[in-house]
């Protein structure tokens, strides 16, 4: 057994987290920053944070992840990181020439109380920030929330920084996509295109974290939301904040600053969440849902009805981020499956409320100690037919012989997530395909010779 010390008996833990189902804020902020064009993320803290976050994102995307760090030493920890940060601004603008530097803090700079906005102002005052260049900064203490919180905080900062107040609202909408893959962001843009709804989306990591191999390293890949688009987000007719945890605060900030009406939706993952997104899009814009999307919906339902026998009643354990887990759970229940164990390290009462209504009989927990160790213990007590989550699940999957679909962050050991979306109807189709594939692979692998099926 790979996880030989995982015991069946579940005892409440109050202090020790084992095999977390979350990581810390800054990596989320870094990911969000990468969704702005010409933006260089900057980690204000020890250089280890930056190294870890870059490594994590790089392993997940197999793409370059550029970021600066304030490289705190013991001295800076005592006297504050101002001089390091101002130096860093100067060096980054000089050497790498970003349009934006997106600074996030770390537990270190937060604990010592560095005021990054004041430091940024000083840098501007001191002429260390060239004309026309931007600094956006988010407070992302690692000891609050999770990586999801960090993503949300950076999005909120972006929403506070760039959009310009406008009396006249124009015929377009803002999409705050939440923490999804570049492929998903691209798919959302495709859907908006099919709907003929003009939009601004931020952040947008497509074209950044899925950059083509060209024989040249574009330090700033061509994707990412552009500054003019960020500015005009303030004059949108409506903001779709996708994901309560990732996007609601940014929607709220935009509402406050620029009076853009907004509502929070589930990330359009699965059938009904996509339905709701499109319905509201249609309602807000007056653009009907076109046949092309209706056909994609019908293809999804077709696969589900065709293959329901392989889905029905299958028990699932899953872990990941709440904005994904909520619509995912709804979808899996809709297609006849049974999510029975669900954990996320990200805290927030909304998660348990939703789960209580979607899967009242399931084991679910979030926040501290809602970790993969607990989920594994639950699995030992009630085995499952499918495991869904990031690459760390492979240890459980192997020990317990559970079909495993990789989804979420991080995925370190397979490719595809950056190119093939899971959102929208097409995404759900891929998800169902993947689920079926692992379930049917197991049937084939464990079938006796006499029961081995050619046709399934």
């Amino acid at each position, binding site marked *: 057994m*790979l996880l*030989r*010390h995982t*015991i069946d008996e579940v*005892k409440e833990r*109050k*202090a*020790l*987290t*084992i*095999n*977390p189902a979350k990581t*810390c*804020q800054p*990596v989320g902020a870094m990911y969000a920053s990468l969704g702005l064009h010409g933006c260089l993320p*900057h980690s204000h803290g*020890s*250089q*280890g*944070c930056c*190294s*870890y*976050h*870059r*490594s994590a994102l*790089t*392993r997940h995307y197999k793409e*370059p992840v550029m970021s600066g*760090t*304030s*490289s*705190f*030493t*013991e001295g*800076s*920890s005592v006297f504050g990181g101002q001089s*390091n940060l101002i*130096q*860093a*601004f*100067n*060096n980054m603008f*000089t*050497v790498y020439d970003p349009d934006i530097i997106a600074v996030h803090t770390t*537990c*270190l700079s937060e*604990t*010592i109380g560095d005021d990054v906005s004041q430091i940024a102002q000083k840098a501007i005052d001191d002429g260390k920030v060239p004309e026309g260049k931007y600094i956006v900064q988010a407070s992302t*203490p*690692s*000891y609050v929330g999770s990586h999801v919180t960090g993503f949300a905080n950076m999005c909120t900062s972006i929403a506070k920084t760039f959009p310009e107040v406008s009396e006249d609202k124009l015929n377009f909408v803002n999409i705050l996509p939440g923490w999804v893959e570049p492929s998903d962001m691209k798919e959302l843009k495709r859907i908006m295109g099919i709907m003929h709804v003009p939009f601004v989306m931020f952040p947008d990591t497509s074209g950044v974290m899925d950059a083509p*191999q060209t*024989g*040249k*390293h*574009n330090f700033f890949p061509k994707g990412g939301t552009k500054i003019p688009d960020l500015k005009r987000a303030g004059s949108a007719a409506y903001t779709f904040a996708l994901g309560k945890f990732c996007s609601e605060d940014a929607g709220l900030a935009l509402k406050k600053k620029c009076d853009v009406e907004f509502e929070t939706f589930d990330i359009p993952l699965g059938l009904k969440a996509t339905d709701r997104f499109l319905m509201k899009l249609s309602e807000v814009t007056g653009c009907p849902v076109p046949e092309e999307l209706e056909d994609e919906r019908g293809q999804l339902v077709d696969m589900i009805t065709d293959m329901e026998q392989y889905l029905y009643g299958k028990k699932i354990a899953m872990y990941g981020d709440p904005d994904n887990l909520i619509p995912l759970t709804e979808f899996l229940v809709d297609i006849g499956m049974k999510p029975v164990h669900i954990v996320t*390290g990200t805290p927030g009462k909304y998660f348990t409320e939703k789960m209580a209504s979607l899967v009242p009989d399931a084991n679910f927990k979030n926040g*501290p100690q809602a970790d993969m*160790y607990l989920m594994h213990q639950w699995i030992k007590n009630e085995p499952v037919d499918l495991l869904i989550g990031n690459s760390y699940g492979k*240890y459980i999957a192997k020990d317990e012989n559970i079909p495993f679909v990789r989804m979420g962050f991080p995925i370190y050991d397979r490719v595809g997530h950056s190119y093939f979306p899971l959102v929208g109807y097409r995404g759900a189709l891929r998800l169902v395909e993947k689920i079926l594939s692992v379930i049917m692979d197991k049937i084939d692998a464990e079938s006796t010779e006499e029961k081995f099926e050619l046709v399934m």
Partner: protein
Amino acid sequence: MSYEKIDEYMLDKYPKKVYRKRAKSVLPNDPAEPGEIQANVRTIPGIITQRGCTYAGCKGVILGPTRDIVNITHGPIGCGFYSWLTRRNQTRPESDKAENFIPYCFSTDMQDSNIVFGGEAKLKEAIQEAYDMFHPKAIAVFSTCPVGLIGDDVHAASKEMKAKFGDCNVFGFSCEGYKGVSQSAGHHIANNQIFKHVVGLDDTRSDSKFRVNLLGEYNIGGDGFVIDELFERCGIEIVSTFSGNSTIGAFENSHTADLNLIMCHRSINYVADMMEKKYGIPWLKVNFIGTEATSKSLRRLGEYFEDEELIAKIEAVIVEEEVKVKAELDLIKPNTKGKTTMLFVGASRAHHYQELFNELGMETLAAGYEFAHRDDYEGRRVIPNIKVDADSRNIEELHIEKDEAKYSQKLQDKKAALEAKGVEFSDYDGIMVEMEKGSLVIDDISHYEMEKLIDMYKPSIFCAGIKEKFAVQKMGIPLKQLHSYDYGGPYAGYKGAVNFYKDIDRMVNTKVWSLIKAPWATGAAMNASFVKVS
């Protein structure tokens, strides 16, 4: 290109202060007279560095490979998360039931209230929970940045819990990320604590004749397993490895060895020094990366133990293995000869792997370390001249005294006798004397410098780590990761050498790099019309 030109091309864009600082870390090499290189100094903020932090060096590198210690990260969740299973610390428990905590990540997952009100109580509760669930032989606690700042005393907490349990060693590391200037500080802190809390606890002496410790071998990709097997064939017992595939029991017993062998000089030379001072164990620098290096290192063991039978066994192994390697290399070398490489990684790896590239007939155009000190470049002879700066000063230096009961004068006498015959102990000449004249040596290379360097030289392959991998590959140059081996390996010993030859052959010769340019990029298309308008 002359060095001046290179300097200009690579560094000229920097602000003046940065230029001046970086210029000291970039040297054209002269093996005859290694110049003085700036190393182990603060990274310039914003420059985009390869470096990590002290916690990474301590918990990730040194303690990561031990399997039977419950390693609890005391801090917010991130540090524990990122150092969870990402370093390929292969281990081989004694049995299916034996302890192996490597696949687990333990953390106190500090919350804001812990920052405000202190985290010690939570830490103790976490230690208690770990003890209750797993009853491990040892629990280690690793401090992350906020811990030092808010004043949690991990050492006091550990001591208290250790006393409470009685049957479980508990000790802590003040390895906050902001300490020192790189991972190197973390190695030092890790080694100090292991030396203080663990080494020397078990005096049992096995009755095998040749007993050594292998220091600075972390069993990435199974390197340690290969070396273990070689040693076993020669009849040499490895009492402990610091710290690949290690157990706390082996550390406790390590002071009973007759010799310390150092693989990674940077991360571990402290331990060798301390063990020599306290227990009288001499140390030799070895290297098992590269066929020749492996044979040479094995022969040093024969030389040390001065045992005919051992020497005969070693020679037999060398002959047998070298024939096999040669057969493979003869097939591969024609494909790799004349190709070029650059290595910017770790400390010892950028040095050791040049051996393998040499064997492939490949030229190292440039190399440098991520977290080394001057002695790793220029050799230990410069140690007395290294200025101790503020960042180094605050890493504890243990004051070691001879352990009169356990000190082996016999080994020291043996050392003296061998030294008289010309055997070199306690020595490491550094990377520079082995690099070609005119090749470039760069410490703590920045992303910008790396791209410029590649632009200038277009090496056939570049060696670095995961953060560099895809940026370099986007430039059309394959990058070999020398931390993770790209999830390949082992590369140590003879078997590892062959693995490496094959992997490099594949990487520099695979056709996939030729697919990058779209054919229309040549402008061949689009020169025709659609329907000819008549």
